[in-house]
């Protein structure tokens, strides 16, 4: 009945305040083009840094190689002397070991030519302990 006063849950006087219910998807942030631009810019900057650093690395590598170039005569001379010394010692050992073998020419070369043939590692380290030969052959090898 219309007249009876029943306690009901009613809206506040004046009604509810208005609130926005419509969808709110604002256009914000940078546009697509500018995002591309930023990405490409960052990449270009990265490339430029990389090329600069590569040039610097090349200069450093040239410096290291020049150090090697400067030292090469010394190292080559030392290596030559060492090889010749080992050959000499081997020759003298051979003379001692093979003096009773008939028809053996000490120091006979295995080639028909008389030019300098660089000696093999096996030839140089023949009369030495095997670990010296292995060190010479594989000592500085980093890979397998």
């Amino acid at each position, binding site marked *: 009945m219309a007249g009876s006063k029943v306690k009901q849950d009613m809206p506040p006087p004046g009604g509810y305040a208005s609130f926005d219910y419509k969808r709110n998807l604002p256009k914000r942030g940078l546009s697509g083009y500018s995002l591309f631009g930023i990405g490409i810019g960052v990449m270009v900057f990265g490339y430029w840094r990389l090329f600069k650093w590569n040039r610097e690395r090349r200069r450093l590598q*040239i410096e290291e190689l020049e150090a090697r*170039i400067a030292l090469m005569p010394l190292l080559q001379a030392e290596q030559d002397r060492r090889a010749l010394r080992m050959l000499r010692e081997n020759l003298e050992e051979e003379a001692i070991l093979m003096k009773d073998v008939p028809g053996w020419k000490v120091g006979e*070369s295995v080639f028909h030519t008389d030019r300098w043939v660089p000696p093999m590692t096996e030839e140089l380290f023949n009369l030495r302990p095997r670990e010296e030969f292995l060190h010479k052959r594989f000592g500085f090898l980093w890979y397998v």
Partner: protein
Amino acid sequence: MPTLDVPSLQELSVDEINVSSAVLKAAAHHYGSQCDKPNKEFMLCRWEEKDPRKCLEEGRKVNECALNFFRQIKGNCAESFTEYWTCLDYSNLGELRRCRQQQQAFDSCVLDKLGWERPELGDLSKVTKVSTQRPLPDNPYHSRPRPEPNPVIEGKLEPSKYGSRLFFWNWASLTVAEIPSQGVVWTCSLHRKRLTDPLLTWTVGQREEGRRDAKRKRGVDRGKYGGEGHRGGGE
């Protein structure tokens, strides 16, 4: 077989430099610019003669120069040099870029006391001319005397009249078989045919009429050369 000539131990005895690799690397650039002359002479000798036994004297001069160089450094700039090479030794690969400070100190010390300048980047890799008294060796490879070149053909040379007879030879291989009843038989692998004369030249596209009729009679397509051709060339 010739005997190998090896110099005696006395000839090979030279004052060696008892110094480790970090020391050498630290002093490398200055060494390259100071001891340039004997180094280059030794390398020239080594590369021209291709024989280390002939370059022992130059090697001795290289060692002398190096010893003098290190004595000078030791006399004048020992502390900064020691710091420099210890820093190089400490780094993993002995990279020169890890020790720039010590390098600066060493360079300035050497410049003040001895007047040596560190060579610019790329100076040590430049190609130089070396002047020596040693004559250029002839025949460093000890090669045997080469044969005389062929004499020049005199007279007018003209192309042959019928072209080359060997023109079709790279198209097919010829096989020879000895069949007892038929004698020597030449077979051509390309046309799967027996040849009556190996020097007959074939033109592409020639076929016998008989073979084509045989294919049509049977009504089966046996391929380009027909059924008979697969039997190895016998007819």
